């Protein structure tokens, strides 16, 4: 195991893509233990790691994001929020959070959302006098709302892995999303008054009306999705495909900004960004299979259980454990490995699977922004053109705000469980 860990770290620092580092480590481990019969089954294991219906939402929500960017939907959502809150001190920073909340009602993935917003929000914040790294940090942090406010890819993956109701997970994510957004808003307010940020003129009613009218077709996307899911026209996974179709129609016919010639590059981008995630999932599956074959997670889990009998302390240990895991591993990959191990444990502690799911999904989502392994950090730093090290410096206040929110959500289960119960 130690040798495998060393291989893992060396390859990581030699800039080998993370997905492949996981695969290579697994093969190296199998060879080191001399259990060669297992290598023969490796290709099939790679394959079946992806044969998962819930995973279909990954590429389709990415595609929906690209279509909305090209079709002028994203800019209109931002413009509309700007007319509403642009006149506050730090208005555009709030706009960033609010626009991300709106987007979150459509998008299911933080990485897709951070990619989308870094291109649009960061330049416009810089134009208004904010520093580039603060813009990028605000965008990356607000992008975390993507998978917490439904729909949500990571919630779907948790539901698939744990058997917890996906619809309860979705509804359970709403209030925690609001808590997180409020935490960011408080942080921005504090930073703004400390650093004496500029303000904008309040938008006249006429402008608000104009902007609202132009945003109506853009709002069709979330409205159709929410109405469609609630009325039983389609499933949460299928909603990703419907989102693409609606975004296509709105971009083509309402805003007329989307052109046929954009489609090939949208689809190619979708393929590559999808693969960076799904390849990671396939390789993580291989890695996780090696771990479960050796019963490593079972041992870690039973060790964790031996530490305490109190569910509250257990949740704290899990959170700390996952924050450490999230520093080094992709969240979705970690989820797939860990959920089957945690499920029997939480039953022993009497912890609700939906509450537990929301907590660990938020925890692992925060991991997207913790160095050294954080896909969200890389995306924001490359798309907003900010050096990784400076971005990390400006993002830590947001990380602290996120941790505090996570603790509140962990120790106040009703924040998650109340909405699903009253909607039943």
């Amino acid at each position, binding site marked *: 195991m130690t040798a495998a860990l060393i291989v893992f770290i060396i390859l990581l620092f030699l800039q080998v893509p993370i997905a492949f580092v996981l695969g290579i480590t697994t093969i190296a481990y199998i060879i080191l233990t001399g259990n060669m019969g297992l290598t023969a089954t490796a290709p099939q294991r790679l394959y079946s790691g992806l044969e998962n219906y819930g995973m279909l939402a990954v590429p389709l929500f990415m595609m929906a994001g690209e279509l909305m960017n090209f079709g002028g939907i994203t800019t209109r959502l931002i413009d509309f929020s700007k007319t509403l809150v642009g006149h506050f001190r730090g208005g555009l920073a709030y706009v960033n959070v609010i626009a991300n909340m709106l987007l979150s009602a459509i998008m299911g993935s933080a990485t897709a959302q951070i990619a989308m917003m870094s291109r649009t929000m960061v330049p416009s914040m810089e134009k208004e006098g904010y520093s580039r790294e603060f813009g990028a940090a605000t965008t990356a942090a607000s992008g975390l709302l993507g998978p917490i406010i439904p729909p949500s890819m990571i919630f779907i993956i948790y539901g698939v892995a744990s058997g917890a109701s996906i619809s309860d997970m979705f509804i359970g994510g709403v209030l925690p999303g609001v808590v997180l957004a409020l935490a960011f808003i408080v942080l921005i307010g504090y930073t703004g008054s400390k650093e004496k940020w500029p303000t904008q003129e309040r938008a006249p009613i006429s402008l608000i009306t104009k902007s609202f009218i132009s945003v109506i077709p853009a709002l069709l996307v979330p409205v159709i999705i929410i109405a469609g899911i609630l009325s039983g026209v389609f499933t949460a996974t299928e909603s990703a495909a419907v989102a693409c179709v609606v975004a296509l129609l709105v971009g083509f016919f309402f805003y007329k900004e989307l052109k046929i010639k954009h489609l090939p590059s949208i689809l190619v981008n979708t393929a590559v960004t999808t693969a960076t995630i799904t390849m990671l999932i396939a390789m993580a599956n291989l890695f996780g299979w090696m771990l479960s074959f050796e*019963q490593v997670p079972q041992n870690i889990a039973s060790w964790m259980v031996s530490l305490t009998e109190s569910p509250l302390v257990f949740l704290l240990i899990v959170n700390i454990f996952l924050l450490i895991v999230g520093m080094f591993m992709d969240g979705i990959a970690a989820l797939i490995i860990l959920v089957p191990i945690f499920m029997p444990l939480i039953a022993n502690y009497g912890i609700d699977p939906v509450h537990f799911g929301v907590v660990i999904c938020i925890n692992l989502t925060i991991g997207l922004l913790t160095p050294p392994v954080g896909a969200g950090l890389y995306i924001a730093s490359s798309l907003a053109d900010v050096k990784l090290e400076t971005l990390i410096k400006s993002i830590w206040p947001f990380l602290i705000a996120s941790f505090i929110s996570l603790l509140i959500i962990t120790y106040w289960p009703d924040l998650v469980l109340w909405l699903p119960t009253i909607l039943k």
Partner: protein
Amino acid sequence: GEDTASNETDGGETRTFKISHVTQESHVWHQTALKFGEELEALSDGRMNVDIYPASQLGQEKDMVQQLETGSLDFGFLTNGYMSTRQDSLNAWFMPFTFKNLEEAAALRKSAAAKQMLEELSSQGLLGLDFAFAGNRHILLKDGHVQSPDDLKGKKVRIIGSPAIQEFWEKTGAGPTAMPLPEVYTSLQTGVIDGIDIDLDALATEKYYENAENLTLTNHMTFPTVIVMSQQVYDSLSPEDQKIVKEAISKAVDWGVEEAIAREQKNLEELKKIGVKVEELKDPSSFEAITKEVTDKYSSQSEVIKSFLEEAKK
């Protein structure tokens, strides 16, 4: 595997087998696997025991089969749904309205045709040991009960994606869809689907009755698991140990079948208590024409299925 699991003790060599299956630990198949472990340990004076990997921990069923072929997994409980995509004769278990209840279905595991099915598995490097059962399948609908195929017309029903099951369902006039299990609860809630084809154990544990409350006891099909051993591993055992393995599995499955029957009864009572509206399919003869079409087709394709159906009629 042999390299990882053998070690010396003062009583001689002990051997730990890896068993994998797709269900949760509460499921009767897991309990049967546990029972098998106990029997094995008792019969071998502690020389042989098992490690169980539930809930697809070592991969999906296609991975399990591959690991069995290469001998890195020793035993597998594989659903008949999956195995029938690899071996046609197993569709025998999915012939509609063949068994009036679970007892009848379970009794057929000792039939000559069932033994033939297990033998055929050897072409895949698998030693077929036995069949165990989860429960017969019934129909849960959001609206109404089922007394004839007309009651199913136009209803969107979630089924297990397997050609024989699908064929039966298409002929009823319903719209069958092989939606993945994790989507079912929500889809039933929002009305994406109108009902499901399900056994009582799954109905009780997955709480689908929260979203649809009309249960018709149709017994239209059964749903076994095929218990297999890696041929490679089996061949590496002494004749004496081979005998112990077979005896232990047979004892465990005998117990498991009784347990499944008892659980079906218990689940039914519990579901009634919760308020699920239960009705029995009074006259299955309205399904006769459909049933005949399916069984004729499959018995003309496979001698094993034909003789299985004949034995079932006795």
